[in-house]
């Protein structure tokens, strides 16, 4: 008896499966991450216990998770926003770094600004720098169609080197004993805390940005025209929409959001420009946007999940499990998500192949 197995495209996936896939992907990613840890000689159950204890399972951990979620919500939003116009912004890392760099510049050279003006000036300059950095990729994409993935990516490396140049050189702190730190910023350049916590207000700003971005893209005519330009360029052209202009504006907006993340990390967490101001937040934002399936509000949820893993993995380090385990689990979650989506889009069809001589049955199939 012979069988043939083939993939067949499903016309529409059942709703329950569409919700089940991301949940199962997270479970699968955690499980596979456990296998990686077990292979390294660590007890995965202990490890996940430490991750829980270090993140959501304790008040300190929960506050750290909120702090870590802030840049991740923003970098995730940056990617998801660009996806609305059909572009891949893989440059969140660099846009975040130039955002922090520009904010540092304002903090160091305009320190005489009155207190209430200094902080907004720093944050706005961070957004502007991120927007410019993204626009460098957006303009050749819009005008000559040059792949924006590669350009945004290269701009990451250039941003890191620019920051290194400044903190090892002109902005370097002579008292930092050769560490890669800029001079510390004035006290007026520190973001206030939420009352009763040590969590800076950045997370509130990030949530407001998420809601605003969602409203702009999903609830305004302009947002609709952007989505048409990204989803169906031919229709957009037929409607007379200027796609290239929308590409540049949206990618600059996306860069501004990532730049904002940099300015907030600077003023809320590090208080000086330093190497490692971004711990791969830009790249993690790409995975977050994937997990949220590009949905702006879904990004918030996915960013919290990934922040939990990152903060938890810091606690893990004390037990000897290297911190990159967080990145591994995050990426594995996406691999499972993609596999799950494929399973949704297709179904395996196992058919018995009839022997040639057997008479065909009426109405078969």
């Amino acid at each position, binding site marked *: 008896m012979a069988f043939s197995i083939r*993939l*067949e*495209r499903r016309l529409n996936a059942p709703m329950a499966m569409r919700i089940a896939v991301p949940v199962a992907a997270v479970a699968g990613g955690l499980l596979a991450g456990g296998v*990686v840890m077990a292979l*390294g000689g660590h007890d995965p159950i202990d490890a996940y216990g430490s991750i829980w204890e270090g993140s959501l399972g304790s008040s300190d951990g929960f506050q750290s998770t909120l702090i870590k979620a802030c840049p991740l919500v923003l970098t995730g939003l940056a990617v998801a926003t660009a996806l609305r116009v059909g572009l*891949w912004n*893989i440059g969140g890392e660099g846009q975040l770094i130039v955002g922090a760099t520009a904010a540092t510049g304002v903090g160091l050279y305009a320190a005489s600004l009155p207190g209430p003006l200094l902080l907004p000036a720093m944050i706005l300059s961070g957004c502007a720098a991120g927007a410019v950095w993204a626009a460098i990729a957006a303009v*050749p994409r819009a005008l*000559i*169609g*040059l*792949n924006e*993935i*590669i*350009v945004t*990516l*290269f701009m*990451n*490396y*250039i941003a890191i*080197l*620019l920051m*290194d*140049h400044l903190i*090892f*050189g002109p902005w370097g702190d002579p008292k930092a004993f050769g560490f890669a730190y800029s001079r510390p910023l004035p006290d007026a350049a520190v973001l206030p805390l939420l009352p009763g916590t040590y969590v800076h207000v950045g997370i509130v700003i990030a949530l407001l940005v998420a809601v605003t971005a969602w409203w702009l893209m999903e609830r305004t005519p302009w947002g609709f025209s952007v989505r048409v330009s990204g989803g169906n360029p031919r229709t957009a052209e037929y409607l007379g929409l200027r796609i290239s202009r929308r590409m540049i504006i949206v990618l600059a907006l996306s860069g501004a959001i990532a730049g904002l993340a940099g300015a907030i990390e600077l003023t809320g967490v590090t208080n000086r420009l330093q190497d490692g101001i971004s711990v*791969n937040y830009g*790249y*993690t934002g*790409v*995975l977050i946007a*994937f997990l949220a399936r590009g949905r702006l509000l879904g990004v918030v949820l996915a960013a919290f999940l990934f922040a939990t893993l990152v903060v938890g993995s810091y606690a893990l380090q004390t037990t000897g499990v*290297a911190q*990159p*385990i*967080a*990145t*591994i689990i*995050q*990426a*594995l979650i*996406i*691999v499972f998500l*993609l*596999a799950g*989506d*494929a*399973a949704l*889009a*297709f179904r395996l069809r196992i058919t018995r192949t009839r022997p040639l001589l057997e008479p065909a049955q009426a109405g078969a199939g």
Partner: protein
Amino acid sequence: MSFWLNSLSVGIVLGTPLAYAALGELIAERAGVMNLGVEGMMLMGAVIGFIVTLGTHNAVAGFAAAIAAGAALASVHAVMTVGLRVNQIVMGLTLTILGAGLSAYIGTGYAGRRPGAGVSAIAIPVLSQIPLLGSVLFNHDVFVYAVPFVALGIWLLLYRSRFEQPGAADASGVPVFLIRYLAVIAGGGFAGLAGAYFSVVYTQTWAEGMTSGRGWIAIALVIFGTWDPIVVLLGALLFGFVDGLNFQLQSVGVPVSTHLLAMMPYVFTLIVLVFTWTRLRHRRVGMPEALGVPYEREAR
């Protein structure tokens, strides 16, 4: 004079891994699969190649393991994109991040150590004695000497290749899926080799994220080289030269910050890409027709 000769020699050494990675990507792309996971595959090759070389005191074993590591990660890409028809861009980016994380995880504790074995340069008799250029061109390791032959081999293999129109190829009996699988996995092997070249031969250390975007330069090189192996090889050597110039300028004490000098390869890549693309975009010279499109028999 010796400044330029040194830069040329370093450029050839630095261009070699770029060439291997770019040729690997070219094979996958000519078969219709874009692999944006090259950077992650290079990092996996770098860390595995380094650790195995250190453990066995044998660089050959190290390189074999590195090729296997790159191919293993690429086979995930192949199964997902060719088999399950997952979006190639999303999958490639995810694998780059996975490779970066996994290599950092595996490589913890190896930073700052030496591989303990390497690949020594072989001076080719007579030719290496040619004044000036002899030592620049004919005093390298086996990977450098092999790369033009690899490029030529790929050129011969792909010459008049038919798998750029998967539908037509399938109809005429070419095993489209098998070829796509093999091309992606082979490409990953090349990326793994390129990574090990950085950690075992060039820097002789392992450091987290040590390839610093060279996998992406390799992807840009394929566009720059209009999907032609010979042009891609020449492009890789040119980029290696620019990369090497940075170290040479540092060593002669040019009064420019080392960080600004290190931007050169990236800025150069961007400028060249903009020019190449401006020239190519209307004609789409060399771009494989089915690039990025999953093949489905039913959807023909």
